Every structure is written in C-alpha cells, then in structure tokens.
C-alpha cells in the first residue's frame, strides 16, 4: 500500500484538493477515516459535495485531524490503490494552541511515514503576509522531500490573478523540484498530478 501525504501551510487548499482530486478520479461518495490524537479511528461516509461544505472553510486550521481516503489510481492498463492523507496546516515555531500543536505533530509524523509527498504552496499569496504565505517551513519540507525522493510541489490557486506571478516566483525559489501548477477549485492540472503519482508508485 502506498501512502501519499498532502501537506503545506494552513489555508493553501489541501482539503479542497483532497476532495476535488477524489472527484476527478471518479469518486462520488467517499469514505473518510479520521484519526484522532489518541489513535482511534472514526469512519464517515459522505458524498463529495457534502464533504466539501462540511470540511472546507475560509478560516485557517479548519482541518485538525488526519483524514485519509483510499483511492485507486490508473497505472498503465491497471489500477493501483493508494491512501491519500490530508493533514492540518503547518506553521513555523511553536503554536500556543494545544490542538494546533497536536495536529502539526501528527502531520509531521505522517510525513515521516509517507511514501509519496505532495507539498502544496499557495501561489497567489507569495507577496502577501498572511498565514498561507511561503515561509521557513516550506523550505524545510522541500529539503526533506528532496532527501526522500518521491516529492513534488503543487502550486495551488493559479486561477487567481496573482497566481501566475507567484508561480514564477516558486519556480525560481525551488529550481530543482518538479512543480505542478494546479487549481484545486477549478480542477486544473490534475492530469499532471495523476501522471506524477502513477509514475512514482508503479
């Protein structure tokens, strides 16, 4: 079984991508497994649209528990099962909020266990100074991903006006990393993601 992890700063669109990607692969109702900090697992069955309204929100740190879903990815003529993990957002330093702290520790532990790392960066906000802006931790994830091999950057929100400019900035910053421009909301660039995933896990 291949474990594939999605991570990045808060509010970059990890959960949006998580659900849209499942929809792109033809899933209409998803079984989500939430793992809370004590290690117990809750299973819930949602349709994609319901899950969207339930899980996605403007406020940062909406996702707190690790949420996973089994997906089958087309590889050559067959299909391969992977488990996609959605994680809570990561920020620099020590958070004062205990729940956020736990969620970050959980995400980093999953990062250590994952076979394939999808690192999401918000391309539209590189110039701003908000919680989804590129920062130290992104560079660290990049470094870690490089040493692990199966790693790529998803530059999200390219459908927004500033996305294009942000994308070229990200390209410049992470020169030797494979970068896939996507829009999780408009489902752009998913084909490339699919290709990357299937190439890495075969």
């Amino acid at each position, binding site marked *: 079984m291949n474990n594939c992890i999605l991570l990045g700063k808060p509010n970059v669109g990890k959960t949006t991508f998580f659900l849209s990607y499942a929809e792109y692969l033809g899933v209409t109702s998803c079984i989500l497994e939430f793992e809370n900090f004590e290690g117990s697992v809750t299973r819930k069955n949602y349709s994609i649209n319901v899950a969207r309204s339930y899980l996605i929100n403007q406020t940062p740190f909406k996702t707190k528990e690790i949420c996973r879903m089994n997906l089958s990815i087309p590889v050559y003529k067959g299909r391969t099962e992977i488990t996609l993990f959605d994680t809570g957002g990561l920020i620099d330093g020590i958070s004062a909020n205990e729940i956020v*702290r736990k969620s970050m520790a959980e995400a*980093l532990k999953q990062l250590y*266990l994952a076979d394939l790392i999808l690192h999401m960066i918000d391309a539209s906000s590189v110039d701003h100074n908000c919680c989804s802006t590129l920062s130290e931790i992104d560079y660290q994830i990049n470094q870690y991903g490089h040493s*692990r091999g199966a790693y790529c950057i998803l530059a999200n929100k390219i459908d927004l006006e500033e996305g294009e400019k942000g994308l070229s900035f990200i390209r410049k910053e992470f020169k030797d990393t494979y970068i896939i421009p996507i829009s999780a909301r408009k489902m752009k660039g998913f084909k490339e993601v699919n290709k990357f995933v299937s190439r890495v896990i075969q």
Partner: protein
Amino acid sequence: MPKKIKKEVNYLYQLAKQGSIGSNEFLNHLIIDSKLSTEQINQKSSQDNNREEDSFDSIIKELYQLIGLREVKEIVNEILAYIEIQQRRRLQGLNAAPLVLHMIFKGNPGTGKTTVARILARIFKAKNLLSKGHLIEVERADLVGEYIGHTALKVRTQVKESLGGILFIDEAYSLARGGEKDFGKEAIDALVKAMEDNKDQFILILAGYQEEMDDFLKVNPGLKSRFPIHIDFLDYSIEELIDIAELMVNERQYSMSKSAKAKLYNILASKRKKESRYSGNARLVRNLIEKSIRKQAVRLKEKELCTRDDLIMLKREDFLDGEA
C-alpha cells in the same frame, strides 16, 4: 522507505505535542535523519555494484520464462548479439553502425506486447543503452491535440518524458485514422522529427494489430524504413495456452486435475473456432481461471469438511459453464 517508527521520531512527536519543540525543529531532525539513511544506502549500493551483472542475467531469464514467443526471443537474442559486436567493433576502431532500435510490434491483444516491451526496457538499461530504462505507454489521445499547434507540443512532452527509456505507442495505427484534417498525421510527423533529434536517447515502439499496422505502414512509407526491427507476436497455440494456464494456477497455489485440463482445452478450442482474433490470448485464459477459482469456492462452501487437497484442486466441474 522507513516503515517502522523509530523511537526517536516518536519522542520528537511527543515533545512537539507538548509544545517543547516547534515544527521547525521537528522537521530539522527528520531532514538530518533521512540524509543519514540515504548516505548509508548509497554506501551499500556502491558495495554491491557487481550485482548489476546478475540482474542482467535474471532479466534475460525472466524473458525466457515467458511461454511461447519463440520468434520474439530469437529476435531479442539477435539484437543483443548485434549490440555486443558493434561495441567490440568500436573498440577495434572499426566503423560501427549507429544503433537504431526503434521497433514495431504486431499482434493481437493479449499476446504479450507490453510485457515484452517492459522487459526490453530493463535489458537495454542493463546493457547501458538506455540511461533510465523506464517505459512510457501512450495512446492516440496522449499525442493528438485539439487545435492547430497543440499536437506537436503534446508529442514533444511525451518524448521528453521518455528520454532515457522507451516510448510505447499502443494501437499506433489509430494515428493515421480520420481523414485529411485529422491531427494524427501531424503527430506522426512530429514523432519522426523527434526520432531524428534524439537519436540515441530513446527507443520508440509502435504496437498494434497485425492488419491495421500493415495498412498503417503502407499509408506512411517513410515510417517503415525508420523502424528496422519488426516483431510479430503470433497467437498462442492451444497447448501453449494450457501451459500458461498451468503457470497461472501454480502461481496462485492451486492445481488442475487432468480432466479439468481437458475441459479447459475444449473450451479454448471452441472459442478459437467462434472468434479467431480474441481467442489466442493469455488474458482469456486468466479470466477463465479466475472464474473457475470462484466456482470452486462456491462448490467448497457447501461442504462442511474440506482437506488441503480439496482447497488446492480445481476440478472439471469448476470449468463447466466457462464458455461465457
């Protein structure tokens, strides 16, 4: 990949939860940890570099273990000998022809074209002809664009991805289908250009059904001369299919009784009479066997006691309604 959680990581995890260390420190530890482990792996791999040679033998062995495909094996042998001699000639300072290894595979579905292509990629890698030895499998939709100029771009990206490996175009004849205004022609032109531009860096394999491929090559005479190697994948004979069946059954730790084998022979023979094109293939055999395994399960479920032999043996009645 590290699967077990190291004690250290668990400890860090606890610390991060309590708030004694931040996310950055946690990650820093992970980075150092994985760097150390990759260094160890590198050291190991440099130690057993001479295993490469073994792997070449094992790949060849894998090829020879495929049932049937006599002609294919012969041609692969020829190619390998040719490569070897050209390399030796070069060492002696003689003129060596550049190695053009683009190929055309002709054969019905399920005759092993993709399987052989994948093995070839690995063989060429072991022989240092390809740097990566991967196989990119594409079809018409991956090459032909939707508007003017789109096609060349698509072809170029596929070629770029396959550099150092094999680009395998399944059902290649479909590129020439659809009349004058179709972009398929453009895709062929772009492919030819890419073949010239990246001569030694990738191998192009066109695959498809026998007749359609012959027509395809007739329509594009320039293509034929660019592909020096043509391999025909003949349909398996019924005996070979039975051998394949036995192999598949053994792989799954089952076995067939003699009368079950006879039954399977009958089914395959009657299939061949009815529809010739799709009958000669290994996929059909796999489907039949998987079906019989399910039948056997149903049969055994009603029994209260079954021995180890019962669980292994596929009997004649398991194949009974297999005609569908």
